[in-house]
């Protein structure tokens, strides 16, 4: 459809195509031109060939020398008096122009400046009628004076501004404040063996023989459980679909999740796999079982690291329960029976000399800096689309609430609770883009945002993704309200996998965006996970894809959020908060956009962004090698 002069300006560099028949001799105006927004569809339908088309800025004001029909791209042989194109700022612009795009200039410096221009002041109000009430209260200059005034009449009785202390001492605003801390004590495990009791002896972990029977007995639906200890030498082992990868960790003493001390075993992870009585994979749609070394993207936040030992359970549940909610839950709970016994052994350790490494996490608030929230969408459609929230032990089962039971409503957690395993992920389909339990334990966006001194990460919101659209909008509106109350300056929204969860993903963008808060979204999209819906607030997107061809493959955690994605998202959000426009996406998925964005970031920060490998780095099976080499 014809465009306005404004749209023409926005699309100055896009091809000029007549929207309708235009007669010889006319002066070309915006109203003669078709909206470039629909060109993709038109090209796809074979209606349009843009070869040789001039750009919109070139043709505006020029003369049409021949009567042309609708959808005719304007080329130099039918246009007279072409305007010379304006210089492109950057030769690489084409590559940067993806949704996964970012401005070459990092504006964070100026951002800070805008936001620390606090001028202390006092607003005096005198209410004369009858009782004579005098109110004196500090005015936050960071909020415009008009809005401060509005709040006053309502607050007549008890005037309390939470930021009062800050204002009285403007200097304090820039001072970092540590809200809470978390210590991780690492215990190195080099060998896992079976033995008469579960214990940790120096760097050897013993798992009690016969524990399997108790695991089975603990869950009605579990009919069998097998433990395999997979050492690096045995990585080329066939396995049923990997349902989850979990750290083995426990809280020390009475510490609560997210604070105090956590003990964790290094060099070993729990791995849940399983089928039903008939050998049908749990919550699985085939093509994902196979040799471990071919199906794991090593060292992803959610995946095992190369060299680690897996304590792999193979749980058999009641036939037909593989697609019902109690089925996958029982498989996880039965596995956790073993993990819990290891946790008890770990708790019992008294020899501090066994601590190989100590890691400190501080939840730091940076008043005066741009306030950011991370909204993480987790699956909540049912069955294996569920997550246990806030167990007593890291990635435990006990004490946790399934988000489906919580109605998928948003739940606020501290960044340290995320890193301390507050999510026990029951997910398993879409192995490449699902976030395993271990992913939260090492969540790169939370880590990067927490340590970025230019921003103030206030917390993390988990919101479930229900099945029915009406429920999706219900929870999404709650997210909007919650974020509104937080008074943040920017928000990240992440989701895992693709499908109907992109409907609420989009809605979260709208709910937050419509409140005037810049949003950056992170999702696997590429080719296969293209967003099903969109809205005008979805302008800043980071694609988590790593796969070569942009599809969801069978390789565990291949397309999940990594540090390189977190870094791009951070820069993008800073730009968005500084009012920089993120360039529009290209027509089709183009992996070069990411590379050039990464390059730009490295150029500006002076630090190279190391990119993770993808499935192409994994070995082909020996059998195939023989055949193909």
């Amino acid at each position, binding site marked *: 459809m014809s465009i306005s002069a404004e749209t023409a300006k926005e699309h100055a560099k896009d091809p000029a195509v007549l929207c309708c028949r235009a007669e010889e001799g006319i002066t070309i105006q915006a109203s003669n031109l078709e909206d470039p927004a629909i060109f993709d569809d038109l090209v796809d339908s074979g209606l349009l060939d843009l070869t040789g088309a001039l750009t919109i800025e070139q043709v505006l004001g020029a003369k049409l020398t021949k009567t042309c029909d609708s959808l005719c791209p304007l080329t130099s042989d039918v246009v007279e008096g072409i305007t010379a194109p304006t210089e492109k700022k950057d030769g690489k612009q084409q590559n940067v122009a993806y949704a996964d795009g970012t401005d070459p200039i990092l504006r964070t410096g100026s951002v800070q400046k805008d936001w620390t221009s606090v001028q202390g002041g006092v607003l005096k109000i005198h209410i004369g009628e009858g009782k004579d009430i005098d109110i004196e209260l500090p005015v936050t200059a960071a909020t415009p004076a008009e809005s401060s005034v509005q709040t006053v009449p309502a607050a007549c009785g008890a005037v309390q501004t939470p930021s009062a202390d800050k204002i009285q001492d403007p200097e304090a605003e820039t001072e970092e404040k540590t809200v809470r801390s978390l210590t991780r004590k690492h215990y190195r495990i080099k060998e896992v063996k079976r033995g008469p009791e579960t214990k940790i002896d120096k760097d050897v972990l013993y798992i009690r023989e016969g524990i399997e029977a108790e695991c089975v007995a603990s869950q009605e639906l579990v009919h069998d459980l097998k433990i395999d200890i997979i050492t690096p030498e045995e990585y080329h082992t066939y396995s049923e679909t990997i349902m989850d990868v979990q750290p083995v960790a426990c809280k020390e003493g009475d510490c609560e999740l997210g604070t105090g001390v956590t003990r964790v075993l290094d060099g070993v992870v729990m791995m849940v796999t399983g089928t039903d*009585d008939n050998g049908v994979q749990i919550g699985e749609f*085939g093509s994902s079982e196979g040799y471990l070394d*071919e199906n794991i993207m090593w060292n992803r936040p959610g995946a095992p690291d190369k060299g680690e030992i897996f304590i792999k359970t193979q749980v058999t549940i009641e*036939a037909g329960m593989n697609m019902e909610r109690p089925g996958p839950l029982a498989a996880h709970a039965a596995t956790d029976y073993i993990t819990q016994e290891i946790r008890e052994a770990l708790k019992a350790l008294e020899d501090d000399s066994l601590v190989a490494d100590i890691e400190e996490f501080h939840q730091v608030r940076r008043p005066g800096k741009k306030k950011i929230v991370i909204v993480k969408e987790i699956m909540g459609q049912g*069955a*294996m689309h569920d997550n246990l929230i806030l167990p007593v032990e890291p990635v435990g089962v006990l004490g946790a609430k399934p988000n489906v039971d919580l109605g998928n409503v948003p739940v606020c957690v501290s960044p340290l609770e995320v890193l301390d395993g507050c999510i026990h992920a029951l997910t398993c389909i*879409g192995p490449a883009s699902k976030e395993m339990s271990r992913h939260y334990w090492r969540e790169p966006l939370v880590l990067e945002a927490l340590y970025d001194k230019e921003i103030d990460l206030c917390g993390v919101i988990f919101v479930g993704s229900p099945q*029915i659209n009406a429920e999706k909008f219900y929870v999404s509106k709650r997210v909007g309200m919650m974020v509104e109350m937080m008074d943040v300056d920017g928000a990240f929204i992440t989701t895992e996998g693709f499908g*109907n969860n992109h*409907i609420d993903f989009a809605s979260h963008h709208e709910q937050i965006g419509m409140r005037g808060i810049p949003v950056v979204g992170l999702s696997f999209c590429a080719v296969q996970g293209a967003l099903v819906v969109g809205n005008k607030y979805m302008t800043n997107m980071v694609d988590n894809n790593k796969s070569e061809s942009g599809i969801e493959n069978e390789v565990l955690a291949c397309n999940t959020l990594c540090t390189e994605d977190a870094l791009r998202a951070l820069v993008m959000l800073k730009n968005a908060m500084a009012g920089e426009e993120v360039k529009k996406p290209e027509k089709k998925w183009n992996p070069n956009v990411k590379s050039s964005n990464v390059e730009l970031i490295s150029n500006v920060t002076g630090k190279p962004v190391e990119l993770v490998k993808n499935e192409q780095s994994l070995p082909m099976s020996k059998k195939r090698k023989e055949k193909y080499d």
Partner: protein
Amino acid sequence: MTDRKELQYGDKMIRMEGVIVEIHEGCVGIDLKGRLGFLKIPMRMLITEYPLKVGQEVAWNMSFVEQLGPKANEKYVSNLDTYIRHRKEMEEKNEEGGRQR
């Protein structure tokens, strides 16, 4: 990896209709109308405006399935062999168990 071949008939979108015949918490089974097959999809690939019921009609666009090449991928062949063998073993075990009981 199989060569990444461009689809030749990818733009031939066909409206397919089906009936929901199975509802599980994690997936639905759909019979394609006109005896054109059966489809089982995880919940998150289904867009739901109403509470799910068996017998509800559904529709989507799809195209024809094309082969990407003549070769069979050994990885998938061997995985499938193992999977089928495992299932058979388990079924046999179940039967034995049944007899003993």
